[in-house]
């Protein structure tokens, strides 16, 4: 189908994009979620502002403690980044498995976070990695923990007029991995689990098991309290109530959660 009539502007600076979003335009990053929704008329923004003309939103660099990833950096670049592979392997894992090469050539890390689909791969891995998001709006810039960004289906704590400009991933020596299950390569993930194992303990998060990506607190608590992996797997779904849908029942998704937590933990441990 053809999207509804809309006004299009291409911002050449972050300030210009913020002004457009504050005036009601929807930010367009890689378009790999927004465009299909517009075609199906699930979304019908009256105005969009294209962020692809803002050079400072693209690229991966580092300071002493963190890797800074521009919000418009595409998944292909993230999957190929040695820096991200070295410090947050699970984020590179996730980026390399999103959609298809065509989708990874357009889709962006900021777009994935801002879209907040409860089956996205990227947000869960960034939560497990302890990443933060830099958002800029009419009232200036602020930092939001990735864990505090997404509140429910397609909904974030971004204020009106705010856009995500950067994702900051802590540099760590953690061993980490992401494991997911999906039916066909191009399909959305049914359930995915990211695990980081380091000197400060285990952190884990999952996608596809709630209305937003969630920390696997019970799983972490068992392992960080010296318990066995089997005991942690037995408790992995504690406090989590997945939604039944065409992609599986509640029991099925809880089962997948255990299988994938074990797989991700095993892969992380072997790295």
């Amino acid at each position, binding site marked *: *189908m*053809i*999207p*509804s*009539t*809309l*006004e*299009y502007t*291409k911002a050449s600076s972050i300030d210009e994009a913020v002004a457009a979003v504050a005036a009601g335009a929807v930010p367009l990053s890689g*378009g*790999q979620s927004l*465009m*299909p929704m*517009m*075609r*199906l008329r699930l979304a019908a923004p009256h105005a969009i502002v*294209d962020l*692809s003309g803002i050079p400072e939103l693209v690229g991966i660099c580092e300071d002493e403690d963190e890797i800074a990833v521009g919000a418009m950096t595409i998944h292909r670049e993230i999957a190929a980044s040695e820096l991200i592979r070295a410090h947050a392997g699970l984020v590179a894992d996730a980026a390399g498995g999103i*959609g*298809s*090469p*065509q*989708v990874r*050539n*357009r889709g962006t890390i900021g777009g994935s976070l801002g879209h907040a689909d409860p089956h996205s791969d990227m947000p869960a891995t960034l939560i497990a990695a302890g990443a933060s998001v830099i958002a800029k709006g009419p009232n200036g810039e602020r930092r939001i923990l990735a864990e505090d960004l997404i509140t429910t289906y397609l909904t974030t704590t971004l204020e009106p007029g705010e856009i995500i400009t950067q994702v900051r991933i802590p540099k760590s020596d953690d061993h980490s991995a992401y494991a997911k299950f999906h039916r*066909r*390569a*191009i399909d959305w993930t049914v359930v995915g689990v990211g695990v980081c194992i380091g000197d400060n303990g285990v952190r884990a998060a999952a996608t596809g098991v709630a209305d937003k990506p969630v920390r696997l607190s019970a799983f972490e608590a068992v392992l960080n309290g010296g318990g066995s992996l089997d005991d942690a797997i037995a408790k992995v779904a504690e406090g989590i109530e997945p939604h039944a849908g065409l992609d599986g029942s509640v029991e099925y998704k809880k089962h997948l959660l255990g299988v994938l937590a074990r797989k991700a933990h095993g892969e992380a441990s072997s790295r």
Partner: protein
Amino acid sequence: MGETITVTVNGTAHTAEVEPRTLLVHFLREQLNLTGTHIGCDTSTCGCCTVHVDGDAVLSCSTLAIQCDGREVRTVEGLQSEDGTLHPIQQAFHENHGLQCGYCTPGMMMAAVGIIEQQPNATDDEIRAALEGNLCRCTGYQNIVASIRAAADQMARS
């Protein structure tokens, strides 16, 4: 409502008026009459509409024409040389029976060129993995992979 854009398609600059909501695939097919690029699924699943924008394989059904203002687009029509010589990927699909009904073929070939350019020494397994975004409803995947293998080898030799 129209906006004027200039897009270089297969080496030729086209200046045209488009509505901002016009998808790249509709611009190519309906305004430039380049109907080699197919529309399959309308949900970013099938890869039929794959074209290259500034050298990257992308889905033309998930890109607005206006986003391509000032950019270079390559479609399946741009593969063969001006003298009519087939591109190695076209020749390989021809020789290896890489198509049955042919509907997915333009997208397969544009994805294949992207794969060969990104990974010139891709193994068969890597070719299969990289084709994850292209569906063939005839399920002719064996010969599609064989065609891409043959084209990659041919392009490496020349």
